[in-house]
């Protein structure tokens, strides 16, 4: 019940933030140089043709009216019509969001689990060889530009070893996957399509690996630091001094206490990963949200840019909200 009230209050707080994002994006795309209409008309179009097209997309209206129309649309879930494709943005976005979310969610989940495991492992061996090795490797991974790492992984995993499918698409078209959510692995699991499951999973390996390597270090650092803090805390020493067995110590006294600070960092990592998969998507021909948003921006497809920024911002704040709830659940001291 308290949780519900907390969530409700937080959702209310989101309104000004999202409204701010909406206004900022709306203005930003319009002050950017570049004309969205010219890029959809062939070079033979006249000024009259351009005006007609502008009217078609309502861009001839005064700015405040455009904004009100846009805002009104948002309340009914209508993000407008893409200037580039002429199709409703909502539908296009749905198709693009699934794959990217799938990629990021899987990658961040794996990274978080790996960070927890390695971080605790590392903290228990603090200042020994294994600890140092793990940390240095994580830092290495963190220092490679994602696009470069992606290319290297493709060169090795696909071109040289041939272990992974060609970096084009997200699932073998012959698997005949019925798209439902756009997240192919999820769709394959829902429809119980065996070949599609293995194909989608195989396509996911390298991009997920790229992202995981990229985001592991900060998570690992955080887990290790809080695990060390717990290990060196009086509370842990007290439990150890009372002769509790290793397993109880690990499960009851170390793990949960270690994780309390992780959710907000994981949310941050998720947010940045969501906003920056565009490079990974490019390298792996993963036609996802980032590529879509980038293309929208390059062609000044106003509705697309507005929608993509709003969705990412929304996902971001939502993930933070979830992180806070998880934090409250993990840490009994948190009052919400």
């Amino acid at each position, binding site marked *: 019940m308290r949780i519900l009230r907390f969530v409700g209050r937080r959702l209310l707080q989101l309104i000004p933030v999202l409204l701010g994002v909406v206004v900022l994006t709306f203005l930003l795309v319009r002050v950017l*140089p570049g004309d969205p209409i010219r890029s959809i008309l062939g070079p033979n179009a006249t000024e009259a043709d351009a005006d007609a097209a502008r009217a078609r997309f309502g861009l001839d209206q005064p700015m405040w009216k455009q904004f009100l129309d846009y805002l009104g649309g948002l309340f009914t879930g209508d993000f407008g019509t893409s200037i580039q494709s002429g199709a409703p943005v909502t539908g296009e976005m749905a198709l693009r969001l699934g794959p990217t979310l799938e990629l990021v969610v899987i990658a961040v989940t794996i990274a978080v689990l790996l960070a927890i495991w390695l971080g605790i492992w590392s903290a228990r061996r603090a*200042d020994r060889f294994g600890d140092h090795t793990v940390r240095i490797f994580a830092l290495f991974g963190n*220092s490679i530009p994602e696009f470069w790492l992606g*290319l290297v992984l493709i060169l090795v995993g696909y071109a040289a070893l041939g272990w992974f499918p060609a970096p084009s698409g997200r699932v073998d078209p012959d698997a005949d996957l019925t798209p439902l959510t756009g997240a192919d692995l999820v769709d394959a699991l829902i429809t119980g399509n065996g070949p599609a499951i293995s194909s989608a999973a195989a396509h996911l390996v390298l991009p997920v690996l790229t992202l995981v390597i990229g985001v592991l270090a900060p998570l690992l650092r955080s887990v290790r*630091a809080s695990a060390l803090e717990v290990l060196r805390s009086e509370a842990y020493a007290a439990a150890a001094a009372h002769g509790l067995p290793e397993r109880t110590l690990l499960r009851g006294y170390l793990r949960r206490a270690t994780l309390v600070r992780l959710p907000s960092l994981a949310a941050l990592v998720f947010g940045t990963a969501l906003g920056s998969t565009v490079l990974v998507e490019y390298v792996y021909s993963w036609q996802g949200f980032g590529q879509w948003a*980038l293309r929208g921006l390059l062609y000044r497809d106003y509705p697309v840019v507005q929608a993509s920024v709003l969705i990412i911002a929304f996902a*971001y704040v939502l993930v933070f909200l979830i992180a806070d709830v998880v934090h409250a659940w993990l840490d009994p001291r948190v009052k919400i």
Partner: protein
Amino acid sequence: MAAIEMAPVVSSNRDGRFAKVLIYVGSGILVVAALAALLAPLLTRWGPTEIDPSGTLAAPGGEHLLGTDGNGMDVWSRVLHAARLDLGIAVLAVALAVVVGTLLGLLAGYLGGWVDDVLMRIVDIFQAFPTFILALAVSALLGGGFFNLVVTIAAVNAPAYARLVRAEVRTLREMQYIDAAKTSGASTIGIMWRHLLPNSLTPVRVIAPLNCGWAMLTLAGLSFLGLGVTVPTAEWGSMISLGTSDVVAGRWWTSVPPGLALLVCVLGFSLLGEGLQERADAKRR
């Protein structure tokens, strides 16, 4: 009588030694990189944008230490000269972000109330804004020049500092020494400037180097998307991006050297940051 060494619950005997190694190695790398950047003209025979008329994609050795790229420019010279730009932009951008973020965080954290609410909502908006789109938009708006990139990357990073400093200030302002300063008649600005600022910078000092590395990666990403510096300016990200297909063809020298340079510098920042973090943790204990 036999002396007995007790087995510790958690070893902390060598505490700080590894941190020291990290800090030394990290700053060592950065010093070397900075020196290479400064001395670049002395260490190279070709200018960074000078075209060798005898052809492109020459293999390393002979006239060109690391060969030439697709434009016939000397890779070694470009890698060295690029350090100026990459390190410069990263450090300046983070410095700008620190200044702006700290100021906002200080005001929001100490004044509280509606100032806090308004400033933090603005920070929220900026932080919720997808990094790359913000960066792309700013660079599309301002163009890809040196200072515009500094502003872009600073804009992306400032919110994090604002949050960090605000959180710190909110704890610090409950400290007894702040009460002590108030009862000693210190003014609000005096308290912020003399007491809160120096003490709230501790976490900033740890994060900033890590952030510099991250800024370099962002810059490289922007260049990869064609939104960083314009060709033919020497910049690691754009060099890597231009050389990607060369790697596939076995011509490693156009993109591997800038890639390694980038990696090593980012690693330098990360090591330094990690070391500082560890030292800070050790101090707190």
